[in-house]
């Protein structure tokens, strides 16, 4: 007897991506993480409402300024931490739990599984970033309303226009976080301990921030992802300053290419011993 060779189904890749996303969402820890990410703009809204002051970027705020500030705050630590956790789960977590070997003998080709994991991290980065933006926007409109705002250059912009700029900021930051996640994905192919991946990824992020504060290492700064995180503020200038944001995205693309290729090289040749 011989089993008939079954054809590969259309959309099989996207079915597994869907499975990956629902797996990520099913984890209690990730749910908690999303709540924390969303809580930051709400807490900021309450703090601004009760204390009166602001520390806002601009003197005239509408509802979009709060999510912008929340994104700025969370880009330093919370968002990279969220990406580090997801990256830890991606390969190392599956290896640690033994589920990796079952995926691979199913079979999911190794390159395909890595692509699925990357897609999952991409979705995670966008979901986390836009969650902050949307929750922040709702809280912001409640505190500041939906009137006009102003740019860093001191010019007025309408609510609709500032919504567009908020979306651009979130998009930029989501791509930056995808680069952090890709770096974490590489670490995830190196070890079988998800916690080690998370720690390793955060060590890279924190060392990058320290480098940012060390003038002797100024030559190194343009190569680091963190150097470009806050560059999204450039879209709040009038006219928006694209050159640095584009450079930042270029650096993020380079990080994704290098660490993604390293992850591929490592994962496709690795012995799955757990």
């Amino acid at each position, binding site marked *: 007897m*011989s089993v008939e060779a*079954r054809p590969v189904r259309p959309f099989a890749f996207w079915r597994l991506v869907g499975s990956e996303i629902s797996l990520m969402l099913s*984890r209690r820890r990730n749910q908690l993480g999303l709540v924390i990410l969303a809580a930051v703009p709400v807490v900021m809204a309450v703090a601004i409402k009760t204390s009166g002051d602001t520390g806002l970027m601009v003197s005239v705020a509408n509802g979009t300024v709060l999510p912008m500030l929340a994104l700025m705050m969370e880009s330093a630590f919370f968002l990279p931490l969220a990406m580090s956790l997801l990256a830890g789960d991606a390969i190392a977590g599956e290896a640690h739990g033994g589920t990796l*070997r079952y995926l691979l003998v199913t*079979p999911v080709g190794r390159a395909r599984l890595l692509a699925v994991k990357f897609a999952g991290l991409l979705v995670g980065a966008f979901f986390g970033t836009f969650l902050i933006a949307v929750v922040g926007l709702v809280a912001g409109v409640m505190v500041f309303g939906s009137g006009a705002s102003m740019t860093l250059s001191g010019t007025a912009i309408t609510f609709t226009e500032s919504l567009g700029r908020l979306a651009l900021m979130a998009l930029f930051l989501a791509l930056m976080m995808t680069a952090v996640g890709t770096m974490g994905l590489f670490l995830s192919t190196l070890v079988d301990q998800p916690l080690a991946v998370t720690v390793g990824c955060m060590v890279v992020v924190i060392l990058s921030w320290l480098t940012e504060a060390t003038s002797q290492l100024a030559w190194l700064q343009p190569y680091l992802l963190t150097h470009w995180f806050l560059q999204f503020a450039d879209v709040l200038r009038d006219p928006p300053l694209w050159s640095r944001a584009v450079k930042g995205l270029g650096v993020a693309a380079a990080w994704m290419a290098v660490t993604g290729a390293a992850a591929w090289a490592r994962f496709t040749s690795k012995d799955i011993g757990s």
Partner: protein
Amino acid sequence: MSEGGAAVVTSGLTKTFGHQTAVDDLALEVPTGSVYGFLGPNGSGKTTTIRMLLGLVHPTAGHVRLLDEPMPAHANRVLPRVGALVEGPAFHLHLNGRDNLRRLDAADATAEARTSSARIGAALERVGLTAAARKRVKNYSLGMKQRLGIAAALLQPHDLLVLDEPTNGLDPQGTREVRHLVAGLAHDGTTVLVSSHLLAEVEQMCSHVGVMSRGRLVAQDSLAGLRRAHGVRVRVTTPDLAQATDALTVLGLDEVASSAGEGASGQVTAALGDHAVEAVVPALVSAGVRVLGFSADSASLEERFVELTGEGFDVR
């Protein structure tokens, strides 16, 4: 795949981790349609071999052919025809049994999404987990996890099933069920490779046996063939172990082995083969061996394996 060919063939298969050789020059041959018992004590290299068969671990040297295709080069073509349970079941503990199977079904690019639920339901039914399908795997007993692992291997029809220690953690009832399952699958034409450290289990389930010891395949034959090949073994009790060993070797007996016993004397055993049993004692005496005891009997499979592997087996 030709009937009567081999579902699994390895040649010179070797895996070293650093200085340690886990699998050494393995020439495995699992005939198509057989239930092959891959027997060996824990740590003898069975699991590493199975990982190499499935492309999880890259061999240091040697080749693997699975269902007439080279591995791991054609993994994407071969593995859809292979079901596997590797080194114990592993699942996402926070998901229930059904969701875990759904995840593995989604991972199979050849599986149709539309019929997923039916497949999963049938597989759960087959291993008797329908009632527990909505329970988190965290709350499963080891036996239930084992059955869920087998269910995962049964999601799709397969030409070859690789089951690594499938009865681990199962109660006698569960073990019996697995045995029936394997028998049923074999009857339907599926080749089954079952690894085990339990001789009794292999004797009850398998048509063929390969014995692993310290990374090497020390015997491989059909169960009947192995039994036949035992023949008669002679056993000499003597204090002169070295002289007895020499004398039996000079006489032309095979598989001469000596073991020190309690006190001054020990035992020397050998396969009698075609030799006349009455010639043995005179030969020993003329060689100056003090024969304290002599017997000639058919050894059990178990004794045979103890000799081959130098280790005992757990016997139920």
